[in-house]
């Protein structure tokens, strides 16, 4: 099928690990390269106990954790020291760009109070990140003061930082001293010629550097910062923005370069670009990648190092489970009027319950996977899922703002991405059938799992070749996906259905500027 000019792309790469699958013991098995085909979703897998402790309840560092644990960002860092062509500083970030609305900037004291308020209201919130709205290390006093306050008042919360890395080498010691366990660096290139197309300028050592010269400085400093952090045992995630035609092939080299410097996780994200955002890329018509383009790149990097696929590209003031932004409940005004009681015991008790849920889901998945043992097939399918969280199929089709996408094969079920379906503004797309938007978003899937679905959308999906499935309502996602896949293989075997190549899909449509 073709939608909106999307061309049918080459064969979906089959999810088939190199080693033989016979005798597989479910997700506990380790591949020859130490990578469980289920990725970090399988739980500890090949991680050391030390590292597992650091990531198991960080929703960004563990795909499995992101169904159960929440994070918050405190927007205490407004200044930035570089300019990127995908950023427009006049508005909140393009993931949710509303002209005229500015992230409330917080002082460190306000941020600390916000952390307590959120931690009390959302006991499964385990991470405080400082990510913007500018660059945390361009505002070092505000950033570090916030960390200090939070470490004192909410000691069980993990501290996390996301930076462009330009000033990183100067602050590694301070970061380490504050027990900031997790640092993310946005590295979009290691070749300054590529960098010159992404970064118009860099402000360093009292001078504005442009073009290749500026990109070279940024790249050297980023990579040096990464090396220094990993030398101190700090877990580094690398974020890369995939920009078709500029760095899409280059990111394979970036992946190798950051792996060799000890990065723990690589998060390749799609460029978000629309003219309404007023970014250089948006205005010049530079597009983001299609779902298949993104997945193909992520798949090609998977063998080298752990890849993150569940990033929601959230704002510098995001609060909650990934994919469920609750920041509106915690505005500066509301926090001041809230009664904030920080109960460490209650938080720990709640998190213990979450751990039990999570273990139950993993056990169910493992058990279901054993029913696939011995099956040989090159087939893999993508399934879209409507979920509110908790790792269960618990959302109504019509209420879903996004769909999670899982790839299923004889190796198991694996989260591979998500698709937004809520970004169209009132004036433009509202006349367009919202079902069409969903179909474009999940066009590469053979089925969509929901808790409920109405008759009319059900028919529309079937007409588009996507099977609406509600018989697994409220059950665990991965377990259900595997069960469905087993039936799918059977239906293919008996000739009841034909396994055909699905087309491509749109990761996001619309610019949310209303």
């Amino acid at each position, binding site marked *: 099928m073709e939608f909106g000019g999307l061309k049918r792309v080459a064969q979906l790469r089959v999810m088939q690990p190199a080693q033989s699958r016979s005798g597989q013991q479910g997700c506990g098995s380790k591949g020859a390269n130490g990578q469980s085909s289920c990725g970090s979703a399988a739980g500890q897998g090949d991680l050391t106990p030390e590292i597992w402790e650091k990531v198991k309840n960080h929703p960004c560092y563990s795909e499995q954790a992101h169904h159960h644990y929440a994070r918050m960002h405190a927007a205490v860092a*407004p200044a930035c*020291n570089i300019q990127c062509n995908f950023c427009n500083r006049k508005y909140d970030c393009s993931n949710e760009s509303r002209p005229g609305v500015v992230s409330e900037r917080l002082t460190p004291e306000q941020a600390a109070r916000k952390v307590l308020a959120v931690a009390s209201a959302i006991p499964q919130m385990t991470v405080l990140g400082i990510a913007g*709205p*500018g660059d945390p290390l361009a*505002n070092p006093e505000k950033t570090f003061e916030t960390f200090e306050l939070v470490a004192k008042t909410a000691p069980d919360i993990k501290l996390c930082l996301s930076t462009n890395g330009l000033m990183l080498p100067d602050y590694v010691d301070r970061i380490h001293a504050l027990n900031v366990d997790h640092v993310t660096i946005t590295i979009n290139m290691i070749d300054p010629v590529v960098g010159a197309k992404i970064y118009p300028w860099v402000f360093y050592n*009292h001078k504005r550097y442009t073009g290749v010269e500026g990109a070279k400085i940024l790249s050297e400093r980023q990579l040096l910062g990464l090396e220094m952090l990993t030398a101190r045992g700090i877990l580094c995630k690398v974020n890369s923005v995939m920009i078709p035609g500029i760095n899409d092939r280059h990111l394979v080299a970036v992946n190798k370069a950051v792996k060799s410097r000890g990065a723990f996780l690589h998060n390749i994200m799609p460029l978000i670009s629309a003219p309404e955002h007023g970014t250089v890329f948006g205005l010049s018509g530079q597009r983001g990648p299609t779902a298949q383009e993104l997945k193909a790149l992520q798949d090609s990097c998977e063998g080298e190092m752990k890849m993150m696929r569940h990033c929601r590209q959230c704002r510098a003031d995001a609060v909650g489970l990934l994919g469920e932004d609750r920041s509106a409940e915690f505005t500066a005004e509301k926090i001041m009027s809230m009664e904030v009681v920080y109960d460490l015991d209650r938080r720990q008790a709640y998190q213990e319950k979450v751990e039990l849920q999570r273990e139950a889901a993993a056990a169910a998945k493992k058990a279901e996977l054993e029913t696939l043992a011995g099956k040989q097939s090159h087939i893999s399918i993508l399934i879209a899922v409507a979920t509110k969280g908790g790792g269960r199929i618990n959302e109504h089709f019509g209420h879903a703002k996004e769909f999670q996408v899982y790839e299923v094969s004889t190796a198991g079920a694996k989260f591979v991405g998500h698709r937004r379906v809520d970004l169209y503004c009132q004036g433009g797309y509202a006349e367009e059938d919202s079902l069409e938007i969903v179909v474009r978003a999940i066009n590469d899937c053979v089925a969509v799992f929901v808790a409920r679905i109405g008759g009319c959308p059900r028919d529309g999906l079937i007409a588009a070749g996507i099977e609406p499935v509600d018989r697994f309502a409220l059950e665990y996602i991965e377990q259900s996906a595997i069960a469905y896949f087993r039936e799918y293989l059977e239906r293919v075997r008996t000739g009841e259905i034909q396994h055909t190549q699905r087309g491509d899909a749109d990761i996001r449509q619309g610019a949310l500027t209303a």
Partner: protein
Amino acid sequence: MAMMIKETRCIGCSACVNECPNDAISEQSCAFAIDPAKCTECIGFFSEPQCAAICPIPKTCIVNPDVPRFAVAV
């Protein structure tokens, strides 16, 4: 001589404040402002005005047309 910040264009990111060698920049109600009495356009300190070099919004941190300029002492 002095730089100025166009109030309607300033997004209040505060990046300029710490870069000023003369402590000339302060926060106003909805933007930042440069004290013309303190600003030397960074002459004597750096090769370019620091506030303009770090400002993310084009045409926002500019030369103040109301303050007389004079040449750098050679």
